[in-house]
């Protein structure tokens, strides 16, 4: 669906995108992840033909973005970071206007508008003036506009930013409901969002792609601290001098972190123990006179992976604590 080759974009002398290449297959849902200013929006603007790339090529549905922009725009739905709405129009007026500009045949305009009004849960509010709407509504109007012409490719720039938790859930559910038919690109700096919505993630930093992989691979990949093993958090009561050799001596267990407060210890372990259960661990702890308060298996979070890959290790530690 998308093929980007060595895309570079300069603003004056400043490189916003450096030699970016990637491909997106049809029907894929892909997340652009990066901090603010990483280049996500610029990349999206190049994909939507809004900005021309300084160098490199982008093909969407086999068409060169720089040559056949109008045709590509017919196939792409785009929600910019701030929903592009006319405050003095009602939702319906706005969507009608959008339908006219998006080449929807005259007779189909009304059914299209009514369909997205229902899909985006805007039916009740359809005759309200946009300026008076809450942020969640505005965001949904923005999404309605983006899906109005049933695009093959949907590009959403931070679709949930600035919304309250209930609105975030609404928008997420809406995007989820769209995905089965379309290729979707969404950007965010919220990691859990990518984890929930996308199958694949591109991590972007300072205009470069740092990682391009599926969420699964990313979580156990080179960025993660546990190789094949599981990471276990343990809370134990007892004497450290007895406990430490006892636990550390178990084959297949590596101590990663030990924090003590009086006689209570928080321990991070990496387990490659063949049996995979905690029997031996419990036994050894009991024999050393300790008491297990809590055992919790923890997965490497996307957040840690992200921060590690983007080379911000200090933050990664503090976020774990």
């Amino acid at each position, binding site marked *: 669906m998308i093929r980007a080759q060595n895309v570079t974009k300069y603003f004056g002398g400043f490189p916003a995108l450096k030699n970016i290449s990637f491909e997106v297959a049809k029907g894929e849902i892909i997340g652009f992840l990066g901090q603010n200013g990483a280049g996500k929006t610029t990349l999206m603007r190049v994909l939507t033909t809004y900005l*021309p790339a300084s160098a490199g090529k982008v093909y969407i549905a086999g068409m060169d973005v720089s040559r056949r922009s109008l045709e590509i725009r017919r196939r*792409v739905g785009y929600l910019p970071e701030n*929903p592009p709405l006319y405050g*003095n129009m009602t939702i319906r007026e706005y969507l009608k206007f959008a339908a*006219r500009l998006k080449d929807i045949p*005259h007779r189909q305009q009304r059914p299209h508008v009514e369909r997205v009004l229902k899909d985006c849960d805007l039916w009740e509010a359809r005759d309200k003036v946009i300026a008076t709407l809450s942020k969640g509504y505005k965001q949904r109007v923005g999404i309605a506009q983006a899906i109005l012409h049933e695009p093959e490719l949907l590009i959403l720039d931070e679709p949930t930013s600035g919304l309250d938790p209930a609105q975030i859930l609404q928008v997420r559910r809406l995007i989820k409901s769209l995905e089965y038919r379309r290729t979707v690109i969404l950007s965010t700096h919220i990691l859990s969002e990518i984890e929930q919505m996308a199958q694949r993630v591109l991590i972007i930093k300072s205009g470069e792609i740092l990682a391009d992989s599926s969420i699964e691979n990313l979580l156990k990949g080179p960025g993660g601290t546990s190789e094949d093993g599981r990471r276990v958090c343990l809370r134990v009561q007892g004497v450290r001098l007895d406990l430490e050799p006892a636990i550390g001596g178990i084959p297949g267990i590596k101590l990663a972190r030990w924090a003590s407060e009086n006689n209570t210890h928080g321990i991070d372990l990496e387990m490659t123990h063949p049996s995979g259960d905690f029997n031996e661990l419990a036994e050894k702890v009991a024999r050393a006179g300790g008491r297990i308060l809590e055992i919790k298996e923890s997965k490497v979070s996307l957040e840690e992976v992200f921060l590690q890959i983007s080379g911000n290790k200090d933050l990664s530690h503090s976020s774990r604590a």
Partner: protein
Amino acid sequence: MGMKRGIMRKIFAIAKKELASHFKSPVAYLILVITISVFNVFFFMILDENREASLRDIFKVMEFMFVFFIPILTMKTFAEEKFTGTMEFLMTTPTSSTAIVLGKYLGSLLFFTLIILATSVYYVMIEFFSSPDRAAILTGYLGIWLEGAFFIAIGILTSSWTRHQVVAAISSYVIVFLVYFSVSFIKYFQGTAESLIRYVCTMTHMENFAAGLLTVTDLVYYLSGILFCLVCTRISIENRLWH
């Protein structure tokens, strides 16, 4: 054929939206009320003073008023869309830059035409009480309409340069003033420069229209001026580096 019709539809859709947004804004109503009341006052003053059945001096007043109000009318056309981000919406729909520029131009031109139509009351009054030179009034109206159309094109061009409406208004004031008043500086120039300034100045052309003279030079002047500004506007919105 279908393609052409599609473009026309989009131009009308944008023009309709522009016209509607003028009527939704208090600024436009203010302009409407102020200009019409000022015209009224001057109409009776001039009529009382000259005691002749012509709109010749009225056209001068109109021309002068338009220099002031058209930049206010047009300042938001592109600047507001850039500021609120709707420009990104327009430019990512399958609508060509030409259609966007023409639609916006047409919308403002229609609003301006409505104001001109409202002043036709004066003509009716003069016609009612005497027998004016109809040809001169007709060409005068054509002239004033073309002049307004030219100023609107200038205003739309400056609005496409910036995301701040005030900057757009000030820039178009500068250009419109230069174009309108340039004839006042003519005594400092000679030869080619002098005739160039005489050509560029709107006043010299408007005088002919108001006197009932319809010349190709004057028509070409306004039409080429409008075309030039619209082409520049298209280039300016295409060139996204100007953000």
